[in-house]
C-alpha cells in the first residue's frame, strides 16, 4: 500500500503517522507539503493531527484552501481512501468531505488521555480488522473535538451506518461519563456516505506499538492494509 501523509504549516503528528505507516505497517509512505497540487501515486491519503495555521481561525478552516486539498477532493471523489486524524478530521469536515463539525470540548479545556472506543461497524475498509462491538483503547489530545451535526445530518449518519467509532467505557457501554468532550451520540469517528473517507478524533498512531500500550490503534492501519489486499509485516 502506498500512503501519503499531508503536511500543513502547523501539522505536528505528520512524523508520528509517517513512522507508524512506514516502520510498523510497512507501507511505502511519503510526506507531502501542502503547496503541492498533485498527490502522485497513492492508495491512501492521511490528513494528520496538529494545529494547521495555529488553529487561530476555526480549526481546519484555512488548511482546506491549500492547493493539495483540491487534489485530495479529486482523489476522494474517485473512491480513494482518505483518513483524517484529529486536526485532519477537522480539516476534512471543513472541506466538506465529511459531514458535521468539531466544536470546543464540553469543559472548555484541552484534554489528553486514553479513551475507549466501540467499533460500531466492521464492514468498512477502516475497521475491517476489528470485530463489531470490539472495544479499542486509544489516546485523545484535543481542545476542539466535540462532534456536532444538525439533527437531520445526525439521523442520516446513524441510519447509513456511517458512525464507525463511539466513545464508551472499558466494557463497551456508551455512557455520558465515557464521553470525553461532549460529542453528540458519543461520536468519535465517522465515514462519508460512499465509505471511502474516515475522520476520527482519537490518535491510532499513538497506540500502534506495544511499547506505547496495547497496540490497538494498529487495527485501523491493519484494516486499511487488508482492504488493499495486503497484511501487516510479520
Amino acid at each position, binding site marked *: 500500500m502506498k500512503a501519503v501523509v499531508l503536511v500543513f*504549516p*502547523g501539522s*505536528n*503528528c505528520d512524523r*508520528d503517522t509517517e*513512522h*507508524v505507516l512506514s516502520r510498523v505497517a510497512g507501507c511505502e509512505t511519503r510526506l507531502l*507539503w501542502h*503547496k503541492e497540487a498533485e498527490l502522485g501515486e497513492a492508495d491512501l491519503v492521511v490528513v494528520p*493531527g*496538529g*494545529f494547521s*495555521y*495555529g*488553529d*487561530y481561525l476555526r480549526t481546519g478552516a484555512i488548511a482546506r484552501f491549500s492547493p493539495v486539498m483540491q487534489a485530495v477532493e479529486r482523489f476522494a471523489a474517485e473512491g480513494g481512501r482518505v483518513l483524517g486524524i484529529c486536526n485532519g478530521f477537522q480539516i476534512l469536515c471543513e472541506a466538506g468531505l465529511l459531514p458535521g463539525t468539531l466544536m470546543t470540548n464540553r*469543559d472548555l*479545556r*484541552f*484534554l*489528553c*488521555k*486514553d479513551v475507549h472506543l466501540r467499533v460500531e461497524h466492521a464492514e468498512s475498509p477502516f475497521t475491517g480488522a476489528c470485530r463489531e462491538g470490539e472495544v479499542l483503547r486509544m*489516546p485523545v*489530545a484535543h*481542545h476542539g473535538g466535540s462532534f456536532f451535526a444538525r439533527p437531520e445530518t445526525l439521523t442520516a449518519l446513524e441510519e447509513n451506518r456511517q458512525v464507525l467509532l463511539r466513545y464508551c467505557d472499558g466494557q463497551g457501554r456508551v455512557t455520558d461519563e465515557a464521553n470525553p468532550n461532549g460529542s453528540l451520540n458519543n461520536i468519535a469517528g465517522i465515514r462519508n456516505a460512499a465509505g471511502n473517507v474516515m475522520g476520527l478524533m482519537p*490518535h491510532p*498512531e*499513538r497506540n*500502534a*506499538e506495544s*511499547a*506505547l500500550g496495547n497496540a490497538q490503534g494498529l487495527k485501523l492501519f491493519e484494516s486499511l492494509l487488508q482492504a488493499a489486499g495486503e497484511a501487516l509485516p510479520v
Partner: protein
Amino acid sequence: MSHAPEPAVTPELAQEHGLSPAEFQMIQDYLGRMPSWTELGIYSVMWSEHCSYKNSIAQLKTLPRDGGRLLVAAGEENAGLVDIGEGLAVAFKIESHNHPSAVEPYQGAATGVGGIMRDIFTMGARPICSLNSLRFPSLSHESTRWLVDGIVRGIGDYGNCLGIPTVGGEAAFEACYNGNPLVNAMTVGIVKHEHTASATAEGTGNPVFLMGASTGRDGIHGATFASEELSEESEEKRSNVQVGDPFMEKLLLEATLELIGTGDLVGIQDMGAAGITCSCSEMSAKGESGIRIHIEKVPQREPRMSAYEVCLSESQERMLVVMKKGTEASIRRVCEKWDIHCEQIGEVTDTGLFEVYHNGELKSAIPADSLVLGGGAPVYIRESREPAYYRELKTAALDFADVEDPAAELKRLVGHPNIVSRRWIYRQYDHMIGAATTLRPGGDAAVVRVLGSHKSLAVCTDCNSRLVYLDPRAGARAAVAEAARNIACSGARPLAITNCLNFGNPMDPEIYWQFQEAIAGMGEACRAFDTPVTGGNVSFYNESPESAVHPTPVIGMVGLLEHDRPVPSAFRRAGDTIWLLGISRSELGGSLYAEHRLGRLAGAVPDPDLEAEGRLQDFLVEAAEKSLLQSAHDISEGGLAVCLAEACFCDPDTRVGARVTLPGEGRLDARLFAETPGQVLLSADPAHAETLQALAVKHELPLVALGVTGGESLRITDVLDLPLAGLAETWWGSLDHWMDGER
C-alpha cells in the same frame, strides 16, 4: 520619519536603568566617553542580572561543568550537549519565567516555554519532550486558581500547538510563593553530532539575517524587569511581558532545522532576553568578530520605533542567523517555503564592535566583549551571612507525641496539596504526541524513546524547597539525589543535570548565603553521581512585598535507558513481593507530617548519603536491565506510608492492594512518615527474590521484604487497614475538586 529627541545621558538616568554608579563609570571607561542613549539601554539589559549573571557566576563556576558524556560544556552554547551513543546527542536546558507569569500568567508561562524551545532547536536539536516545575501560593490564597489556570493553559497551549509532548514536572503550593509564583520550563532535544549548530558570528562580510517574527515594542526591558523584586508597580509592567505565537514558533522550528541541514549557516542564536542586542553581542564575542546592524532593515510591527527600542525589544519567535556569504538564496528559499520573514539586517565585521546604525546615523558602537558574561560584564561576590533562622530551626525539638491514629494521618497526607495527583494539570498537556512516551506523567520519571535508535531518555524535575529553606546545602544535595533516584527508578542511568536557581534578592546577605550553600551542596551531589551541570538559569529577586520565596534550586535531570523496558512506579499485579531498598533512618525533620504536628516547618534535614545513593542507582539500573522489577517508586514526601499507598493506585487503570509489615522499631510515626532519602519501594516476582538479594549484597544495600501485593486495601500489620477506593478517590480527585469545584 521623526523621532523624539533622545534624553541626555546622566548618572540619574543610568540609575533609573538599574546601573550602579560604579557600573556607569565602568561603561565610560570601556568606551572612553559618555555612552549614547541607545548604548545606555544596551548596557543596562546586558548587565542586568538576567543576562550577565553578575551576582551568580562566581558561584556557578564552582559546579562540575564537564566530564561524564558532555560534548559541549555549560555556558559555551545555548544549552549543554551530552553524547548518548549511535552518533546522537541530547541537548537540554531549564529556564525560569517567574516574573512575567506573576503578572500575566497565560502569556508569561507560554513565552517561557517558547524561549526554552528555541534554546534547544537553535542548536540543531529537534525537541522531543518538555517538562516544567511550578510553584504556586498556598491553595487558600486568592490568586492561586487564577495563576494555576493561566499558567497551565499557557504551557499547554504553547507546547501542544508546537507538537512537543509535555511529559513531566512538578507543582507545589506553599505560602512563600504568595505573590511570586515560579514557572520553570525545560526542553529536551535530540541532534546528530554532525548537525549541531553554534551561536557564533565569524567571517568578515558574512551576512547577518533576522528570521521569524517582526519586531515590536513588547518586552522592552523584560530582562531588567526580571532582575528586580515584584511590587505593586509590577502590575504596571504588564507591557514588559511578551506575547507568544506558537504557530510562528512551529514554523521557525522547522525552518531552523531545515536551514541548519543545508550546511550554509555559520551560526545561529535565538532572541530571548535583550533581543537583538544579546544575540549580536554574544555571537560576535564568541566569534571574536563584530556585528554591524541597520535598524531600518529590521521588520517592524509598529511605526516609528527608535534604535533603542529595536535593540531592546523582546518580541518572541525571532532568530539571528549568520550565513556564509553567497548562500543568501539558501535562507530565502527555506523561509519562503515556511512563509516566514527573513531580512538581512547587517553583516559580520572584524572590528570587535556591536555597531548599530539607524538610517545611516551611528547609534551605538560598543566593544561586544564588554557586554557579555565572561567578558566585560561585572562580576560580584556579595556579602554572605548565615541567617538566624537556620540554627534555630535546625535544632528545634520535634517534641510531639507519637501518632495516635495512623490511618487518619495517612488519609490526611494522601490528600495533601503537595502529594495528590497532578492529573488535572498534565491532562491539559499533550503528553503523548511524538508516539514516543513509554512512561507517562504521574510517576517518578517520564520515559521517552528516541525514534530511530534503541534508546530512551528518562527525564524529571525535582526540588523540595522546604528542605532547601531549612538547610540549603543538605536540601540541594537532596534535590539532586531525588532527581537521580527518580531517573534510576525507571531503570535509566543518570546522565547530567540542568538547574534553575530561584532565589530572593542576592544583595541580602542571608539570601546570598542560601545561594552559596545550595550551589555547594548541588556541586557535591553532582560530583558524587558524575552528573555534570550542562547549564541552566538563575532567577534572583523572587520576592513579593511579604517575603522572599524559599530558595528553590530546581534540578532537571536526564537519564539514558539502553532498552525499552522502563520500570513504572505502580504495583502491577497481585502476588508480587514488596521490597524496601536502601538505608532506613527515622528522621522526621522537614517532613510534611512533622510540619503538621509542630504547626511550623522545622527540624534537621536528613542529609542524603551520596555514596549509598550512587550504589542505589547502580542497583536499580542493573535490576531493570535484567528485568527483575515490576515497579519501583522512591520514598519522598509523606514517607513510606504515602509511597505504599501511591504504588497501590497511581496507575490510572490498575489498582493493587498491599499486605505489609513495617520494618524497624521505635516511634511509629517516624517509621511511617519520615521522608528519608535513599530509599525505594520495589515490587517483583517472588521467583526473583534470591537474585534481588544477591544484587543487594553486591551493591552493599539493605533489602527488606515488606510483604506482598494484592487485595482491595492497604494493610500494614497492627497499624492500619484502609480500603483503596477512598484513598484513591482523594488522591486522584482532589486537584480537580479544588480547581473546578463540584461538576
